[in-house]
């Protein structure tokens, strides 16, 4: 009985893992096949002869490296913007004593409920009025004004820091800015790293931003650049798959490097609420 239940547990685990990883394996193996192999035997996991050439060919037929460069610029800019602004704001909402902060925090939480649809058009108008249309700043700029979700996350974390340390800092004559840089930031690295990581992934994946705000193909990031080839490369699945693998790989690597941060980040947001 015990053995039987053990067996069924393992088979269930195997089945689940197989279902979830099969598409990824197929993506990888499909990116190493020829069109003919894909047409003839799409389900064969190990290609008969591995075609690494697909990757250079994909890089040649789509300007993926340029897209990658743009993506990296956007990611870097957004990560700097978000971490800086959200840390400052969250500090102001947790560690500075002032009357309005309760209400302001309520606004922060409330703004999370607003779907992007409502603000899409006015934001576009604003960005173009500021002359930021077709510039990276259209996407990076707003991150310097904070993001409700990340502010929330950081504030919750800042509140858990022991007050004594700040007290000691004040006695040493540190101003708020001093407290922020010398005490809060060094203590909050894990939380800030989480925010940085999530913002990075978010910008990496961002599709609607470039769709709305960028019109120069020289400035397109991967997520949008790749989409533009989907319909015209409908017959070259192997190249599209190779491009997708290249697009996905850095995120997967990042995931394995920072697995704990990923998992903890997601699960704490789930539980804290």
């Amino acid at each position, binding site marked *: 009985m015990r053995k039987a239940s053990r067996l069924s*547990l393992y088979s*269930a685990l195997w089945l*689940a*893992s197989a279902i*979830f*990883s099969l*598409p*990824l394996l197929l993506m990888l193996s499909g990116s190493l096949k020829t069109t003919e192999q*894909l047409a003839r035997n*799409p*389900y064969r996991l190990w290609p008969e002869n591995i075609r690494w050439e697909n990757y250079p060919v994909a890089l040649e037929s789509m300007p993926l490296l340029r897209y990658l460069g743009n993506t990296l610029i956007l990611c870097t800019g957004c990560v700097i913007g978000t971490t800086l602004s959200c840390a400052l704001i969250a500090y*102001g*909402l*947790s560690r*500075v004593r*002032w*009357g*309005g*902060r309760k209400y*302001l925090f309520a606004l*922060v939480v409330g*703004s999370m*409920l*607003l*779907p992007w649809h*409502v*603000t*899409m*058009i*006015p*934001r576009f*108008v*604003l960005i173009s009025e500021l002359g930021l249309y077709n510039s990276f700043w259209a996407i990076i700029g*707003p991150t*310097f004004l*904070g993001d409700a979700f990340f502010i929330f996350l950081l504030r919750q974390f800042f*509140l858990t820091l022991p*007050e004594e340390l*700040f*007290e000691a800092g*004040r*006695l040493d004559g540190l101003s708020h800015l001093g407290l*922020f840089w010398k005490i809060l930031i060094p203590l909050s690295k894990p939380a800030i790293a989480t925010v940085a990581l999530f913002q990075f992934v978010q910008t990496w*994946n961002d*599709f*609607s931003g470039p769709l709305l705000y960028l019109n120069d193909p020289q400035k397109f990031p991967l997520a949008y650049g*790749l989409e533009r080839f*989907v*319909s015209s490369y409908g017959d070259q699945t192997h190249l599209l*798959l190779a491009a*997708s*693998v290249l*697009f996905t790989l850095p*995120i997967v690597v990042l995931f394995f490097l920072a*697995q704990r941060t990923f998992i903890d980040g*997601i*699960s*704490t947001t*789930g*539980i804290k609420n």
Partner: protein
Amino acid sequence: MSQSTTNLKQSEKVDRFAGLMFCSPWIVGFVFLFAWPFAASFYWSLCRFDLINPPEFIGLENYRRLTSELQSQKGFGLALTNTLYYSLISVSLSVVTGVLLATLLSAKVKGQAIYRTLVFLPSVIPIVAASVLWIWLLDPESGMINYLLSWIGIPSQNWLNQSRSALSPAGFTEFSQWLQGGALNLFGSKDALILMTMWGVGNFVVIYLAAISDIPGQLYEAAEIDGANVIRKFYHVTLPMLSPVIFFNLIMGLIRSVQTFASVYVLSEGTGEPGGSLMLISMQLFLSAFADFEMGYTSAMAWVLFVLLLAATTLLFRTSKHWVHYRTSS
């Protein structure tokens, strides 16, 4: 929260200036990225406006149009029905599979970390890449999914080239006719989208996993003493203890599914086709704004969506006290 306020010592003075300064980025952001857009889009929803020429006030005309489209199931009506179908099914499926998978992955076995990683990994794949992959997997002739379905005797499905959906009256008729020997064409583009979404359920699984690990072991021990088997333990301990997280995920899932855009854009090549079946609200919004130049109508649609979403969330909150069990800290 309360402990932090009591912790405040005498030496920390009220400093409104510093507070405002630290929060100023967000205040600026709130005014320009939320408050003004919020008000502007409401005003525009009462206008005919194409972004090029100045807005022209037309009262409730746009809202009247939305109501009539709701009745005729065209335009907004179709988009709302599509979104409801997608949201209801994908959110409820993600709760069920999420909880089940998390239970499975919380069992103490060797190599569990690997299983967890494999289940979670798809959820970090960028949407655009995932969509490219699934377009191929769902190809009616050479796609993996139809091949797997053929193992269990289900004939080839048209997926992304098919506007019908499985869980609809027509789907049930189709299914019962198939059982009597007819053809089967059950799964359409929205089912394809749901399938792809479910592949990325790992995000939710992780949250459930964390919640399960927080459940005190004594509860299970107590249940075991009462002679509960695996299923009863799941039903009487795990589920109630998970209910706050399930509730959270319901709301997050709802918001997320209503905002789904990139995947439908890629899967339908920016059209919402076939037969309008992938025209989710967000797709309809994008097209009616920037392909049909109807900013007023689009704003009205966004506002109705916002109100509906707010109502759904409130309703969930209301019902939550009947089934969500918050652990008391004592």
